[in-house]
């Protein structure tokens, strides 16, 4: 989309001035860009930078987005939005519109990292004066590492006029890094203070470097003190981070397990196909995105109810078709549902191919919430944590406040009595199982944002889910929440020193032993019903 915008812009920019076809710079640019040699492309960028060409920045943008293609048949440069048969390609110089027949004739003019960095540098300098403070911050960061003095002078210039404090501080750091290398001791002291106050990795590195080089003992001591301060802050934030990671892992576990907490916990049905219901949810997300490729952001939201319904229906089908004949025979249920899980997996393989499917992350979910350079939390995880809590409390409400919830609890405590009271337990079973399955589907939507969407998705989570439910205490969804979060955090705290594999093993062993001590989990159901 945005590329088209740029195309238009590019045209307007051109119209009045002159026909591009006889602009020497652009002509040379074309020859350089279509060449298969990397160096030529680097040259092309340099050419643009030196020529100060009015279109330079638009071209940079288009290059970064990879909108430039060259046609292997006529060796001409084209602007293409989507290189697919039937799409149109715009000739770079004389704005001819041609229709693409064989997409593979059009080769993207690709940049490598070095070239991208090169362009970003140039663009960053203009970023300093951009309106959004975010862009300015990015610009300063970009240039902080940049040794060339011109960049620094630009920062100094911008510093005086800068109004936003965050940006100012950052600029101050950038300047301080430079001052540190000067010889004026007083200035250096101030610089050290500035740097010691900042958590920018570059500030720290500058100090480290300074400590290793300087002869001036007092300054050295000062810098070292500063470093220690920084290290402590970092340690603290690292702790915070670990906890956050733990919670987000926990929230994933809870999401995966909560549906099970209902079907297994409340109904006492062992549903080995639970993982596959999650998988179905994830695939629903995939399908929805296929249906609305231009509204990725929206698609995920749409997917939530959709996944709930789809998985819910599949769940109900399973309950009606198989499970209801097996009530009171948990072990048989376990086997039958395991069979179902196999069938569902293979079904997905045959329908969607065994390959993983791409589920895109909507823009509003990507990115980070940065508190400071060393502590930032990823948005997608944050949303998942929130989402997990929402789902949890929604369920709590349903079970505690609604008629269904009441009936569910009635049936789960004493089927016969509930029947006698006129509860249609058949229907309740169906609804409950549907609910549990639907929730599993919702979990699938969340998982599709962080992991594979493939036939094995379910398998990966089924055992963990059971662990969480059993650990938390069957029939108690609060238990599930606590258990999930505990396991998540425990896992993350152990991971650094035990390693990912060992951490997982330890957690499993812990649960096995825990079940020995408290067979009914953290929050057991008590009373005569539970005895014996």
């Amino acid at each position, binding site marked *: 989309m945005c590329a088209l915008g740029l195309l238009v812009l590019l045209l307007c920019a051109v119209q009045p001035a002159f026909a591009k076809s006889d602009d020497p710079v652009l002509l040379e640019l074309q020859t350089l860009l279509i060449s*298969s040699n*990397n160096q030529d492309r680097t040259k092309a960028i340099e050419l643009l930078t030196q020529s100060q060409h009015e279109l330079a920045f638009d071209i940079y943008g288009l290059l970064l*987005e*990879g909108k430039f293609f060259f046609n*292997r048949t006529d060796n001409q440069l084209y602007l293409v939005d989507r290189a697919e048969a039937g799409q149109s390609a715009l000739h770079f110089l004389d704005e001819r519109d041609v229709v693409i027949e064989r997409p*593979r004739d059009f*080769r*993207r003019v*690709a940049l*490598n*990292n*070095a070239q*991208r*960095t090169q362009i*970003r540098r140039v663009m960053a300098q203009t970023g300093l004066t951009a309106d959004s403070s975010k862009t300015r911050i990015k610009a300063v960061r970009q240039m902080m590492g940049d040794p060339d003095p011109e960049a620094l002078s630009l920062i100094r210039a911008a510093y005086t006029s800068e109004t936003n404090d965050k940006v100012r501080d950052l600029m101050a750091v950038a300047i301080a890094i430079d001052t540190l290398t000067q010889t004026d001791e007083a200035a250096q002291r101030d610089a050290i203070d500035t740097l010691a106050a900042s958590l920018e*990795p*570059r500030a*720290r*590195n500058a100090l*480290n470097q300074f400590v290793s080089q300087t002869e001036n003992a007092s300054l050295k001591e000062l810098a070292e003190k500063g470093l220690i301060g920084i290290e402590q802050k970092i340690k603290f934030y*690292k702790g915070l*981070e*670990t906890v956050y*990671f733990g919670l*987000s*892992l926990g929230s*994933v576990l809870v999401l995966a397990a909560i549906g099970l907490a209902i079907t297994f916990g409340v109904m006492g049905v062992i549903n080995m196909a639970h993982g596959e219901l999650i998988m179905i949810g994830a695939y629903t997300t995939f399908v929805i995105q296929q249906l609305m490729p231009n509204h990725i952001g929206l698609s995920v939201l749409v997917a939530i109810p959709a996944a709930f319904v789809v998985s819910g229906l599949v769940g109900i089908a399973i309950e009606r078709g198989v499970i209801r004949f097996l009530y009171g025979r948990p072990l048989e249920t376990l086997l039958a549902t395991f069979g179902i899980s196999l069938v569902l997996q293979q079904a997905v*393989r045959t329908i969607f191919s*065994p*390959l*993983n*499917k*791409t*589920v*895109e*992350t909507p823009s509003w979910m*990507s*990115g*980070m919430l940065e508190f400071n350079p*060393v502590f*930032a939390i*990823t*948005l*997608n*995880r944050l949303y998942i944590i929130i989402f997990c809590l929402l789902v949890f409390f929604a369920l709590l409400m349903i079970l505690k406040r609604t008629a269904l919830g009441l009936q569910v609890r009635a049936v789960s405590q004493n089927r016969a009595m509930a029947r006698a009271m006129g509860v249609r337990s058949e229907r309740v079973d169906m609804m409950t199982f549907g609910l549990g399955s639907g929730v599993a589907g919702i979990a699938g939507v969340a998982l599709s944002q*962080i*992991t*594979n*969407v*493939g036939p*094995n998705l379910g398998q*990966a989570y089924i055992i963990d889910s059971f662990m969480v439910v059993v650990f938390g205490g069957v029939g108690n969804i609060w238990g599930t929440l606590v258990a999930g979060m505990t396991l998540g955090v425990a*896992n*993350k705290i152990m*991971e*650094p020193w035990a*390693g*990912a*594999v060992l951490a*997982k093993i330890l957690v499993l062993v812990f649960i096995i032993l825990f079940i020995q001590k408290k067979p009914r989990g953290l929050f057991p159901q008590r009373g005569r019903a539970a005895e014996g």
Partner: protein
Amino acid sequence: MKQMNKKLATATCALALSIAAITAQASDTIKVGVLHSLSGTMAISETTLKDTMLMLIEEQNKQGGVLGKQLEAVVVDPASDWPLFAERARELLERDKVAAIFGAWTSVSRKSVLPVVEELNGLLFYPVQYEGEESSKNVFYTGAAPNQQAIPAVDYLMNELGIERWVLAGTDYVYPRTTNRILEAYLKSKGVAEADIMINYTPFGHSDWQTIVSDIRRFGGEGKKTAVVSTINGDANVPFYRELGAQGVSAEDIPVIAFSVGEEELSGIDTAPLVGHLAAWNYFMSIDTEANDEFIDTWHAFTGDTNRVTNDPMEAHYIGFNMWVEAVNKAGTTDPSAVQEAIIGVTVPNLTGGYAAMMPNHHITKPVFIGEIQSDGQFEVVWQTPSTVVGDAWSDFLEGSKDIISDWRKPLSCGNYNVVTKTCSGQNFE
């Protein structure tokens, strides 16, 4: 009682016989075994290779087959079950009497097949990059050995991108372990300090990368230019790259170079946040040569799907198959021993405009390409070795194997000959 007796008895007999049933020997065709998992976890990767083989055989038959006989593919499914690989291989060789087997993907599946092909003196063409440290009389390694992928990749990062700190991240199995140990030794030999190398292993299908990625970020934020060398396998890649994207690790800050992520794997990932990350292979679909174009067109025609991608192991099969055909024509027979002799030195064109030759150590010569991931899921070649590299079965950077060479030509004809002790161990043929 009687009834039952009969039933059970017949059941067992049926079982015994139907397995025993020896398929009639069709003498007018040459059988070629295809041993790739079509179900189970590895089906994701291996099904494509099965199709590739079918395509290659079909093409060959169009050109009149081999030695005037048509080729017949015998496809079996080891179902991602390692013992089953051995069982199926035995079936192919003993029952179907195939002239050669093309197959296996994971190291463990190859290890499982190895004793069988050696016992029955079969031929196995193994198309996947692997950890090396092996050379069998009966196996031809058409995928990359570590020195045909890892080492050049590191060279590129070191020389072209000026990388000073290294994260070696891999799934905990033999290929990453070996590769990383080779790289560690190699880096140290290049004067990289212990403190500048971070090694990390994760289980198969690891899905929560938060901690590791943030460690990488911190490790990379300490001033020196850092890169990640990833030998992460299969399913674990998607969450890994997603986490990289989520934590804003861009290819400009910390490039990740992968040895097991190809076009096919990328087709399952949202590549937008990955643009600029690297991969090292001996083939990329994007490489612009006549041969490649033709190959891709036939592939699309064969699968009837113009969106299907091609990848490195497919090229490996293409090369391996052509080499086998060459060798058979040269030897004038499909007899394994004859082919084993004939194939050494056989040279066939690869898909990237060069030639691949079968070396005496049963590995082949390959060019090495470094590609950057593009937003369309393809790789853009940013660097390549000036000439092809000879596959080295026994790494010079490992204690155990630096003195070992492999040469299957007479008089040595030994897979692991220790030049110091002058002894030939492993698979002996005296």
